[in-house]
């Protein structure tokens, strides 16, 4: 394919003399659903205008797991794609292998250092060099509540765990499923990290999750976290195991459930069902976590292909990705918030506006941290190890005492 492409390019050059040759980027990503694809289509059209053709290489599944497998195969074959969507620690892993191209010049030219939050830059840079272009920022510590149910319960959004439990009790009395949850390891993990943040604050989260401090992982605050998880479990319905997250959202949309803890991509489901934020549903930070943001950011990584022609296309793409107009167009469709803090929020819906505001505040105040459950808190092995303990505990396979014992052990073993 590459040879055909190069041949085609060569012919174009010959045919049109000094005229601009057909550049192209082969993009590996997992944004395959309608909404996501539409969002990406914005980038594709943008690049087409700049004379860069888009070769799509979509591989869905597991938030990028399959894509990363396909990537490994391509890299081993010596034929990496031009640009790859990547999350969190994967970027670091690949950067370590020395296969990523440097974006410093572009970054300096466009002033990325100033507008991209520092916590994000942690992943976009390796060894001080820019190696990825962040596209968006998702946040995981949200709670989505059915407005009608909330109003019946008094209308006040809960601000800490105690108030949350009270609200959930009220939902139970109303006869609906209090908390819609899907029993999959990553969903369990997403809920767990919100509870960690709620019970212990950002400092505790950083210590336990980001720094893997064994005392924090096995201590009293963590005990409260696991006890909370056990209590939250009592608010699930019986068929929660294995349920896809959007079916849980559907329950809240339909009024069959009161609330769902999920990242901000859940907003897409509500909007799709023609619900209006503030009228039909309410988006709040998970009780006890207001002022803190756990984020995950999709970034485009440019592989070092040793080919100047390709590099020009890559730079164009990176530049297009960071363009404020694109950031608005993409993120309004995708449901996330822009990766640059200098983008106006007028085009976003109310939850989006809140998200952007929260992000800017957290970035300024140092309360912005990477989400563990979505690849920004720890490398894959450690994340999965924590998932193992959390999900077994949530499913009743192990007790809280065992979980407290196993958590630090599992984390240490996975390093």
């Amino acid at each position, binding site marked *: *394919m590459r*040879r055909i492409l190069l041949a085609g390019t060569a012919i174009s050059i010959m045919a049109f003399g000094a005229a601009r040759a057909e550049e192209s980027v*082969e*993009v*590996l*990503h*997992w*944004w*395959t*659903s*309608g*909404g*996501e*694809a*539409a969002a*990406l*289509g914005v980038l*594709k059209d943008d690049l087409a205008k700049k004379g860069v053709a*888009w*070769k*799509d*290489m*979509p*591989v*869905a*599944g*597991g*938030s*990028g797991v*399959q894509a990363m*497998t*396909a990537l*490994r*195969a*391509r890299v*081993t*074959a*010596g*034929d990496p*794609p031009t640009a790859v969507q990547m999350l969190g620690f994967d970027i670091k892993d690949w950067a370590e292998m020395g296969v990523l191209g440097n974006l410093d010049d572009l970054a300096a030219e466009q002033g990325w250092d100033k507008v991209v939050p520092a916590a994000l830059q942690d992943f976009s840079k390796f060894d001080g060099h820019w190696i990825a272009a962040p596209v968006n920022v*998702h946040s995981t510590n949200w709670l989505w509540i059915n407005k009608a149910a909330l109003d019946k319960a008094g209308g006040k959004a809960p601000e800490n765990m105690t108030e949350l439990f009270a609200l959930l009790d009220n939902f139970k009395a109303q006869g609906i499923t209090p908390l819609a949850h899907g029993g999959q390891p990553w969903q369990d993990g997403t809920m767990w990290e919100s509870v960690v943040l709620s019970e212990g604050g950002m400092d505790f989260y950083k210590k336990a999750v980001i720094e893997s401090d064994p005392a924090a992982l096995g201590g009293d605050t963590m005990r409260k976290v696991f006890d909370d998880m056990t209590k939250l479990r009592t608010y699930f319905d019986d068929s929660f195991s294995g349920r*896809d997250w*959007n079916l849980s959202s*559907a329950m809240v*949309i*339909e009024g069959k459930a009161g609330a769902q803890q999920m*990242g901000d*991509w859940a907003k*897409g*489901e509500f909007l*799709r*069902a023609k619900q209006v934020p503030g009228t039909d549903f309410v988006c709040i930070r998970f009780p006890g976590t207001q002022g803190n943001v756990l984020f995950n950011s999709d970034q485009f990584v440019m592989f070092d292909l040793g080919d100047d022609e390709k590099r020009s296309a890559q730079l164009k793409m990176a530049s297009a990705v960071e363009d404020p107009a694109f950031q608005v167009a993409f993120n309004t469709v995708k449901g996330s918030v822009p990766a640059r803090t200098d983008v106006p929020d007028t085009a976003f819906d109310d939850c989006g506006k809140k998200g952007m505001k929260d992000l800017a505040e957290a970035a300024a105040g140092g309360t912005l941290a990477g989400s563990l459950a979505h690849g920004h808190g720890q490398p894959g092995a450690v994340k999965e190890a924590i998932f193992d303990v959390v999900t077994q505990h949530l499913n009743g396979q192990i007790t809280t005492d065992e979980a407290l014992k196993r958590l630090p052990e599992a984390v240490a073993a996975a390093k």
Partner: protein
Amino acid sequence: MSRNEAAIATAAGPGWLNRVVIYGLLLIFAAVYLTPLFVMLATSFKSLDEIRGGDILALPRDPTIEPWLKAWGSACIGVTCEGIKGYFWNSLRMVVPAVLISTMLGALNGYVLTKWRFRGHKIVFGLMLFACFIPFQSVLIPMARVLGTLGLSNSITGLVLVHVVYGLGFTTLFFRNYYEAFPTELIHSAQMDGAGFFTIFRRILLPSSAPIIVVCVIYQFTNIWNDFLFGVSFAAGESAPMTVALNNLVSSSTGVKEYNVDMAAAVIAALPTLIVYVLAGRYFMRGLMAGAVKG
């Protein structure tokens, strides 16, 4: 029609009661086997709202073929929104050569291993048979390396090569067992008449091999058509087979799921194999009988 039951039925008890029991059991099982297909088909004709609210076993209230049209021609597989039809042809372009080549090689191998024995032929066969068990995950990375070196990375040709290699164990097994039962006297008399290696194969063995060829083709077609792992690793992107496209459609992680389109796409994806099974089912029986089953 069975020749056996004529023999056995005479020894059986009250005819009609047995028939009722037999038919009853068969029909119950048929219903059980069909239910998942029913769920898939029913869902594919419903609208999203109906799916979100409803009962999976209910028939669609307002049937619509829109999901089917979308799945074939306009669903988004990544940035391109042209449905799965392109990938369908990719799969065909991959499966047909892979099946033909691996079957042909299997036939020749079976022929050699049974009619032209040499010292160590059992070890060779044993090694080829054991090769059926290698876990595919273990071969992904080294195979990627090899394909890259051959310049076949991310191409349908590369996929064909992969499927041929990993199908050889089974195709050789099928043909070897089949030819094992083939009377050697015919070979001898042909040799006496001066026929050579290929002539014997072409004139004597091949014409009688129809049943086993069909068995082999069916087995290989099913496995290669439904393969996902090799497809995603060695040909994602434009040359992707239909399973990869289907997975992209069905498994989006943080997007909105359109279950009706997913089911429609899934049934479309399964159609070729289903057709092959139904049409060739008769041959399947005869072929299996003739030797694939023999241990």
